[in-house]
């Protein structure tokens, strides 16, 4: 392996590890940590990495694609359809108005050509999907009105990138400009227009159809192998393939990934895909933010600090005004509108792409290009700062608060109070009974055949290994009330319980235990509600056997209940004595003797019985002296 690759990896990873944990300690968002880390290792401070910051950003943009896929996974198709108005309306309004307001001063004050003004304005009107969505998610604000509005605007901008890149070359009058674009778009570029359109539509259709009929069955087959990394590989392959397909037909890879996510949102693999891709997305985005930090040209800023400060201030001011007005028009409440405005008033990562492309086309002068690139990076860096300022100092003055409680956790829209892990015969009985009483549960199971069958029967079952912390989280453990640990394997159940106790201490855990010894393990974990498979059914059977032998039903019923009670009490009593194994065996024997005695006495009239209920002999004896 290449030594310099390892060194680079060490530099990037340690920048992330050090600065993000520092930022978190200081109560700042992780985005800021990455960006500052990037600045530090960048060419102008420590100089550990050169000017490759932009290349890294380009590579790491794939993190944005993944992020949109993950966002798509959380949005079911109907929900997406409901958002169409806000995407086109709010997004379209923000984008066109901001572009217009940047263009006019470009032409009339700066004296730029209209072409340059347009290219620059289109670039600056973009906001940063990566920063905004990451910040929203971290703060748990994705489902607020402001979060949804921000998402709509970002999605619209994302869709716009492709037509803009197609349109920019048309702004150049001379046709001899030589373009070098690494997008494989060239494949269909030379085809006639109608065929291109057809291919675009075909690609989108392919995503939809193959998502339903190819990907889901494929994932089922793969999940049957029970090799976790194979599933992860498939998830990555899926996203990369969609991105490639979209680039081939000239659509935004991020948009394609989003659509693929929406298609798979209703499948049982939703949570598994989510938890598999989450770390990749996080790391790639982190790398992307480091790239942003590293690409800030401090030398240029040092040379022209006033120009850049002025440009940053002007850009942010114009963007904020448009956003605020648009938010007003779309009836966001004042605190939500403020949040919406502050979220989106930076210039986004697509500006780098558009500016770089415009430079290639000679649309933008180099000096201005550098200044605007620096300004873009600065606005991105400052976003977490001003969001924090808004939250601390401005927002509190506006009365109407949208409560955070009203938002659904980022991964799950069905807010079920109960999670059932393991949906075999044991778990499914629980699920059926709960459902019969109108309580729906989020169900996790690791057997894809069963998951498929149960989904056909209308249960909301998700495929996945419940012992994985991330999947538990995706299933909404943070907001559920009860976790029912009903996995067949006692070992897997033990891991699940351990994780849940540690990371979701608020959960009321109800555990299935195979026998007394499992039960002790769970007791050691601090679980108090333990249900031994071998207790209730066995006692039930024994009780029926006694009835069959002629015992009275009600008496047997009472004795069975008492037996279970005694047995559970004995379990608790023995818990503390368990460390000393010798003693354990001794007192276990004693406990059983006690039970036997109790039951025996219950039946023998002549001995002093512990149960005198409705016993005429006992009454007679006691009332003799009367």
């Amino acid at each position: 392996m290449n030594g310099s690759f390892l060194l680079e990896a060490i530099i990037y990873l340690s920048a992330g590890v050090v600065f993000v944990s520092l930022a978190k300690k200081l109560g700042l968002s992780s985005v800021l940590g990455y960006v500052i880390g990037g600045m530090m290792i960048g060419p102008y401070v420590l100089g550990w990495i050169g000017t490759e910051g932009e290349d890294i950003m380009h590579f790491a943009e794939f993190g944005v694609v993944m992020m949109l896929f993950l966002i798509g996974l959380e949005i079911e198709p109907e929900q997406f359809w409901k958002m169409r108005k806000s995407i086109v309306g709010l997004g379209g309004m923000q984008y066109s108005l901001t572009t217009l307001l940047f263009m006019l001063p470009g032409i009339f004050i700066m004296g730029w050509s209209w072409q340059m003004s347009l290219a620059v304005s289109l670039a600056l009107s973009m906001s940063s999907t990566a920063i905004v969505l990451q910040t929203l998610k971290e703060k748990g604000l994705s489902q607020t009105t402001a979060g949804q509005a921000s998402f709509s605007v970002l999605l619209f901008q994302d869709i716009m990138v492709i037509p803009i890149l197609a349109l920019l070359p048309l702004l150049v009058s001379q046709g001899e400009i030589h373009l070098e674009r690494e997008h494989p778009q060239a494949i269909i570029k030379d085809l006639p227009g109608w065929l291109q359109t057809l291919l675009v539509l075909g690609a989108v259709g392919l995503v939809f159809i193959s998502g339903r009929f190819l990907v889901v069955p494929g994932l089922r087959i793969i999940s049957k192998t029970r090799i976790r990394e194979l599933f992860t590989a498939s998830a990555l392959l899926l996203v990369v393939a969609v991105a490639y397909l979209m680039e081939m037909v000239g659509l935004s890879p991020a948009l394609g990934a989003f659509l693929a996510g929406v298609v798979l949102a209703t499948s049982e693999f939703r949570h598994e895909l989510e938890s598999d891709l989450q770390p990749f997305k996080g790391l790639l985005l982190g790398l992307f933010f480091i790239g942003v930090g590293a690409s800030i040209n401090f030398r240029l800023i040092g040379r022209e600090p006033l120009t850049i400060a002025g440009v940053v201030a002007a850009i942010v001011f114009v963007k904020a005004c448009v956003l605020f007005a648009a938010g007003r028009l779309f009836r966001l409440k004042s605190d939500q509108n403020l949040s919406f405005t502050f979220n989106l008033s930076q210039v986004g990562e697509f500006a780098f792409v558009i500016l770089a492309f415009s430079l290639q086309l000679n649309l933008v002068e180099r000096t201005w290009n550098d200044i605007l690139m620096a300004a873009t990076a600065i606005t991105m860096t400052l976003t977490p700062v001003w969001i924090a300022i808004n939250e601390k100092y401005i927002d509190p003055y506006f009365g109407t608060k949208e409560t955070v409680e009203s938002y659904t956790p980022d991964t799950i829209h069905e807010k079920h109070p109960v999670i059932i892990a393991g949906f075999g015969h044991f778990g499914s009985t629980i699920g059926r009974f709960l459902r019969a009483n109108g309580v729906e549960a989020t169900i996790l199971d690791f057997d894809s055949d069963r998951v498929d069958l149960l989904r056909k029967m209308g249960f909301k079952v998700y495929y996945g290994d419940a012992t994985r912390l991330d999947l538990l989280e995706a299933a909404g453990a943070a907001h559920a009330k009860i976790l029912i640990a009903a996995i067949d394997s006692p070992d897997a159940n033990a891991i699940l319980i351990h994780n849940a106790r540690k990371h979701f201490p608020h959960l009321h855990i109800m555990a299935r235990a195979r026998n007394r010894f499992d039960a002790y393990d769970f007791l050691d974990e601090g679980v108090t509600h333990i249900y031994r498979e071998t207790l209730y059914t066995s006692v039930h059977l024994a009780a029926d056997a006694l009835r069959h032998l002629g015992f009275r039903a009600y008496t047997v019923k009472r004795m069975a209940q008492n037996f279970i009670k005694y047995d559970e009490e004995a379990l608790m009593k023995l818990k503390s004595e368990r460390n000393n194994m010798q003693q354990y065996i001794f007192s276990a024997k004693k406990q059983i003797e006690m039970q036997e005695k109790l039951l025996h006495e219950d039946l023998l009239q002549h001995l002093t019985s512990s149960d005198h209920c409705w016993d005429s002999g006992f009454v007679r004896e006691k009332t003799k002296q009367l």
Partner: protein
Amino acid sequence: MLLKALILFAHPRLERSKIHAGLLRYLPNHPNIYLHDLYEEYPDFNIDIKREQALAEAHDIIVWQHPMYWYSVPPLLKQWLDMTLEPGWAYGPEGRALAGKKLLHVVSTGGSAEAYAKGGRNRFTIREFLAPLEQTAHLCGMDYLPPYIIFGSHHLDEESLHSYGSNLAWLLNLLISGAADREGMKRFEYMNDWITQKKV
């Protein structure tokens, strides 16, 4: 044509009972007399309402047979009343399912007849204690016969038990034959006295 009798029998611990186990030995083995052992049928108190109503509808005479616990019925019989006697079925404007049926109350008590009197240890008569049940039957339009009481159950000898058992069997046979002298019974507080007078 013979009438049909349903015995709703409630004893939570029959295996420890002397009196009721003894009385059941005298029960006529007749197809028209059906013994319904509630504690055996519903050990978890989950009364099957539809089944109980159908049973009651199919019989002309209903017998409540039970030991008296704290001047009342055993809990499962109370549960039976609470669950089965639904409004619109047993009472209320359309609740006529039980109307006209005869109700015989067979109760065993630990205390003697003397104890159940104004000056006695229990201060009230049995009829007074059974008033809520009599009224329950009345509200359902049933004909509450004078109750048949087994007194002093704690100290009953075999001979008395035999007489209680055979008298009850004789009474049940008489009731299903439809030849019982309802007007004559009316003059007595307790069925015991009517039987004595009849047999003398």
